[in-house]
């Protein structure tokens, strides 16, 4: 009987084959699941980068603007308030009409003017205000093209489409081609995107306002949640007696970490705005709400870091006469600091990407000005993304993707810093 091997029993060897096949299938499912998740991540990132890259460039048109004294400064006093209010867009219009004299129809004229952005006059005005002596001369200036012309120039609107279905009509294309043939159009890096606030016009909209808003909000979040979180964690880990009260605190911290973010927004609306009467849309309130949200993250990370410091350190410090508080502030906290900072940066990265609670407290308002104080109305990067994603203009799709790229850039940087910090300073005892 001992000589009877598996091979001798055909039904057994067939089953073995089956079992091995099942084994391979099971393994393949696992690998497929991971690869699928990674593939989706890649699709997401690639689609964002593909849609967003064009937004970093902007079409400009070179226009010779005659700075007519009778329009800009009719009384010749060079009074800045008069200069600031003059109709520069009218001057640009006039130049375009002169360039294409055969355009007479009113509707066509309007389309012609629509080649440049309705905010194209701003650099002209700035230039005149900076140097009033230019009045009366003709200046060549690169002006921002309108969003439709810009998308057309980037090839996102095809010439082959039927005219009725095309945002840019045949006559606009012919004018643009005529200007382009003279070398008077250019695709330049879009500096304004990184230096201006929001705008209703996609070609003028920038993310600087949102970046500053995010920065102010995070400053408030950090200023509130870091000291509170570290103090709470140090108390729970080093001082607190183990009783019902501290148990309750721990249960609460764990639960708060899993409460939907939008509920924090409701809390902010009911308590900070309606009860305390703090200003709406302000980074101050946004920062406070996000601080309450990140507090559990920071507390949990800090406690883990404190736990990792060996008791021998504490005993040594106590042995040479340090008080309990001195043990913690002089020895345990500094040793745990890399871990605490890592957790804090990760918490800040979460706060930076958070949108929903900020919608509740009015940070979704349309705000053109770049904020300077924590009480100014402001918006933050993710909310800006949400606002732009909601806008109907086609050019905002690219802007939204570009803003997402900027946001992801910040998040990757923060997480990279956290990883580096951990690698560089982590100590195994």
């Amino acid at each position, binding site marked *: 009987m001992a000589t009877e091997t598996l091979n001798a029993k055909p039904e057994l060897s067939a089953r073995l084959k089956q*079992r091995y096949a099942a*084994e391979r299938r*099971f*393994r393949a499912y*696992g*690998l*497929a*699941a*991971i690869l699928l*998740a*990674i593939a989706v*991540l890649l*699709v*997401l990132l690639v*689609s*964002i980068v593909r849609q967003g890259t064009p937004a970093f460039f902007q079409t400009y048109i070179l226009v010779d603007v005659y700075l007519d004294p009778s329009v800009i400064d009719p009384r010749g006093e060079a009074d800045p308030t008069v200069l600031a209010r003059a109709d520069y867009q009218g001057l640009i219009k006039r130049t375009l009409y002169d360039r294409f004299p055969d355009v007479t129809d009113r509707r066509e004229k309007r389309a012609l003017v629509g080649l440049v952005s309705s905010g194209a006059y701003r650099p002209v005005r700035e230039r005149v205000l900076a140097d009033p002596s230019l009045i009366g001369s003709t200046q060549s200036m690169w002006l921002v093209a309108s969003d439709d012309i810009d998308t057309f120039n980037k090839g996102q609107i095809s010439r082959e489409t039927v005219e009725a279905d095309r945002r840019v009509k045949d006559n606009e294309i012919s004018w643009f081609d005529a200007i382009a043939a003279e070398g008077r159009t250019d695709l330049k890096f879009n500096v304004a995107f990184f230096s201006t606030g929001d705008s209703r016009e996609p070609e003028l909209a920038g993310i600087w306002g949102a970046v500053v808003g995010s920065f102010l909000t995070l400053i408030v979040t950090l200023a509130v949640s870091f*000291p*509170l*979180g570290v*103090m*709470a964690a140090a*108390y*729970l880990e080093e001082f*607190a007696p183990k009783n019902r009260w501290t148990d*309750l*605190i721990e249960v*609460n911290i*764990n*639960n*708060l970490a*899993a*409460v*939907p*973010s*939008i*509920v924090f927004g*409701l809390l902010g609306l*009911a308590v900070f705005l309606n009860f*305390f009467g703090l200003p709406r849309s302000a980074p101050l309130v946004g920062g406070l709400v996000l601080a*309450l949200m990140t*507090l559990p993250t920071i*507390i949990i990370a800090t406690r883990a870091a404190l736990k990792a410091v060996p008791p021998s350190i504490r005993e040594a410090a106590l042995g040479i006469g340090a*008080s309990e*508080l001195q043990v913690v502030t002089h020895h345990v906290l500094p040793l745990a600091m890399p871990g605490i900072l890592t957790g804090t940066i990760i918490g800040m*990265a979460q706060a*930076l*990407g*958070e*949108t*929903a609670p900020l*919608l*509740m407290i009015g940070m979704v308002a349309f705000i053109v000005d770049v904020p300077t104080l924590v009480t100014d109305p402001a918006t933050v990067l*993710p909310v800006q993304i*949400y606002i732009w*994603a909601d806008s109907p203009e086609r050019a905002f799709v690219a802007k*939204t993707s570009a803003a*997402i790229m900027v946001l*992801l850039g910040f*998040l990757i940087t923060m*997480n990279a810093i956290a990883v580096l910090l951990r690698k560089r300073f982590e100590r195994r005892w």
Partner: protein
Amino acid sequence: MNSFVLILAVLALGAFGFWIGRARARVLAKGAHLSSLHSLPSYHGTYVALWCCVPAFLLIAGWTAFEPAIVEFIVIGSLPAAAELSASQLSLLIADISNLASGNIVSREVDSTLAAAAEHYVSLQALSHAALVVLSLGLAICGLYFARKALSQTFRARNRVEQIARIAMMVASTIAILTTVGIVLSLIFETIRFFDKVSITEFLFGLNWSPQTALRAEQVGSSGAFGAVPIFAGTFLITILAMTIAVPIGLFSAIYMSEYAGPKFRATAKPVLEMLAGIPTVVYGFFAALTVAPFFRNTGEAVGLTVSSESALAAGMVMGIMIIPFISSLSDDVMNAVPQTLRDGSYALGATKSETIKQVILPAALPGIVGAVLLAVSRAIGETMIVVMAAGLAANLTLNPLEAVTTVTVQIVTLLVGDQEFDSAKTLAAFALGLVLFTITLSLNMVAQRVVKKYREKYD
């Protein structure tokens, strides 16, 4: 003097207090060795600085929190006509007075009483602010003076300072409880006010949701219906869709990661999967609305199905993708916690790896996995941005994933974004929905945590 300067002034006084406290301690040591003091001079300094700053800051915080309400109360009290106004008219009047006072646009004609009230408001504000400056600086100086007076050679400054620090830490640790209490109270109060206007049975069991209430009493056709069942059904549908994506993919990823993958594969694949969790939800929302939803609609058209452009399918699938790393990393942890002896025992009986996983490891890890899934469900229910951007607004009672449905979070956002008065049933409905959301997610978390904890104790 604005409040920022005031805070700076108090801080400056505190710094001065630290300096004189320390100097005083050195004088007390009389040039002899510092060990003649009970505490180091810096503790004396800190003691004085704390007594200088802390009471003043508490006063400033309390004052700024309650000043607006008190000033409003006095102004309204001085208006003879205000007594007959309803609550909403009163709040409009207050808004007008404060707008007029700060030079903003006012919603009504400015008559002499309103102008007088605004003037009264401005003068009261100025008075209150001046009083705050005097009182807080006075308090700071008093604190500084008395604390400095208390210093002596035997003064136990360190113990006092440490006591204050301990109290501060204790207060910091109760913030978590205060936050929970704040959430519960604010949700419950508004919800009670909501149920004054709409009956609780209609809210929980009504099948019709259209929260447009009449702005004027005589307006027709917009009485508002607050039956939340379609919203709950929509939330349920999207959550189910998300889970059908996330649970198998997440679980299989976790199985491969913990049982099959070599350390090298693990080291690269794990961070990549975690990147999925780090992407902000607004990005997923954009992806769902702009890439996934049109893709489903076009595919549906190609095979002859009508797929809504805000279909539950798109939102649910993208949400599922977002949740994959959540499930995979939690299940990975619990599977790693299954003792190696169980695996070895199974291999010794001749089981293949997959048989071991299916018949030994998964059953052993099941409580932890269930906990992970419950946490993921709570996450999916509370997720906001993906559904706000990719799911519909209209409440639609259906279980067809190709149609547009709406969720609790979408409704909260749409009800509260935009300007409306705070007392209308529409705004209050958002808080009632918030309370439902909070209760459901909280109970899911509680159950999940209990399950996970119980399981951990078994193998530790």
